[in-house]
């Protein structure tokens, strides 16, 4: 089969897997939060979330009606053939998923306010490319919900304030977001590079599983410190009060300009959906985040 067809099939499966099945690390974090939550209102919310996750799997339906803006991350092997066909395959897969999964049409023209009806439009789905050695093509999908997107923030901090400025920026973002991003959330924190780069890093950091800390022990410590701090806010599940506001903090960075300290916080809702697969040169496919038999 040629790459256009393989990539379309794989991307379709990834969208379907992602919107129906939460990754195991997110499910585990939610179960732990439910066990540890002491606020009655918060516990009710977490119970509803856990029940809903089960129902979604049982009825093969998207766990949340907001199936997000479809964002892809491609690791393209430099020797892979016909890479120029991949984006076309991703668009086709997105259109097919809109009808067949189904997922909600979420692509609107910002001038006419018309919904395209098929989750595609100018530059959407959005695709991030990275060229890597070899022949494999790795596709990751991040269906990104709108409620949590609406509280993402980017700031040009004061370099002289250093890490303390960053800590305050993240804590203030969580305080300001409150109930809006469907807590408990996952935070992606991106630092450095430039204004656009910081947010790109932050959003990509949402793909890191919750049970994987930053390989740099100092940053891992900072992730834990910020996690504990934001869970002292008392915002709780769905903002109705409680001790679980954030399930995990994933930090990543680039070097910064001496005069700039760009920082960004990307929020993901509890429905932290992601799925990935690798296509080898011979056309074989390995699903990396979900067991393939989960897709019926």
């Amino acid at each position, binding site marked *: 089969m040629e790459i256009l067809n393989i990539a379309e099939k794989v991307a379709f499966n990834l969208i379907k897997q992602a919107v129906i099945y939460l990754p195991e690390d997110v499910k585990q974090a939610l179960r732990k939060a439910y066990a540890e939550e002491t606020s*009655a*209102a918060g516990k*009710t*919310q977490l119970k*509803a*979330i856990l*029940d*809903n996750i089960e*129902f*979604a799997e049982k*009825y093969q*339906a*998207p*766990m*949340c*009606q*907001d*199936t997000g803006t479809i964002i892809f991350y491609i690791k393209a092997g430099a020797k892979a053939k016909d890479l120029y066909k991949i984006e076309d395959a991703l668009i086709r897969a997105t259109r097919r998923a809109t009808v067949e999964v*189904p*997922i*909600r*049409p*979420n692509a*609107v023209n910002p001038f006419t*306010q*018309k*919904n395209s*009806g098929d989750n595609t439009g100018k530059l959407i789905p959005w695709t991030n490319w990275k060229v890597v050695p070899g022949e494999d093509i790795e596709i990751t999908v991040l269906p990104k*919900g*709108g*409620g949590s997107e*609406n509280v993402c923030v980017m700031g040009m901090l004061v370099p002289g304030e250093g890490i*303390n400025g960053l*800590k*305050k920026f993240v*804590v203030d973002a969580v*305080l300001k977001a*409150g*109930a*809006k991003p*469907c807590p408990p959330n996952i935070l992606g924190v991106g630092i450095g590079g430039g204004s656009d780069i910081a947010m790109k890093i932050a959003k990509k950091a949402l793909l890191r599983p919750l049970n994987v800390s930053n390989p740099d022990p100092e940053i891992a410590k900072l992730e834990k*410190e910020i996690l*504990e*701090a*934001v869970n*002292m*806010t*008392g*915002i*709780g599940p*769905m*903002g*109705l*009060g409680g001790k679980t506001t954030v399930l995990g903090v994933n930090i990543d960075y680039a070097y910064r300009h001496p005069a700039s300290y760009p920082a960004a916080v990307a929020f993901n*809702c*509890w*429905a932290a959906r992601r799925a990935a697969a690798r296509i080898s040169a011979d056309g074989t496919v390995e699903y990396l985040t979900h067991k393939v038999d989960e897709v019926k």
Partner: protein
Amino acid sequence: MAVYKFKTPISEEEIRKLNVNDVLYVTGTMFTARDQAHKRALEYFKQGKPLPIDLEGLAVFHCGPIVKKKEDTWTIVAAGPTTSTRMEIFEDEFIRSFKVRVIIGKGGMGRRTTEAMAKCGAVYGAFTGGAAILAARAIKSVKSVEWLDLGMPEAMWILDVEEFGPLTVAIDSHGNNLFEDVQRKVEENKQRIYQKLGLSP
């Protein structure tokens, strides 16, 4: 905390019984309305144009569902709540104009809505954000769809529901707002957090 099960149309007298933290289940007619449907409904009201249905005593759901059409029948696939604060600019006028009794959404609403609810007799029921399949299971059928030109999420879906909930009464008709209470506590915690992190306020 008490549990109430109401059938639409819900009267002002019934709604006044509810207090924050109570749990409510709604049976009967519910309709979805997001930004665009609120805007259009209010424009119709100002122009004296009739709405597709009488909204008095009904529950309005801040929701853009996923809906599937098979032959001539629409089925709700997933229908969790959307963020209600976006409707804050419309909701007080909406409550006054149409006498809806239950506003269902996530994330809570502000002072203007809280005051309109106290004045006219309406409550805000918080439904767990993202719990779209829980919600879909309580929706028995799609009675009709209006204003589909606004797109699937923004259209007005008129739904027949059975024991739709649990809805945590987060704003009652007595001026209480649970989200504001949590917000006050969060504000108090802020200084403790800054201290723990060694930050100056």
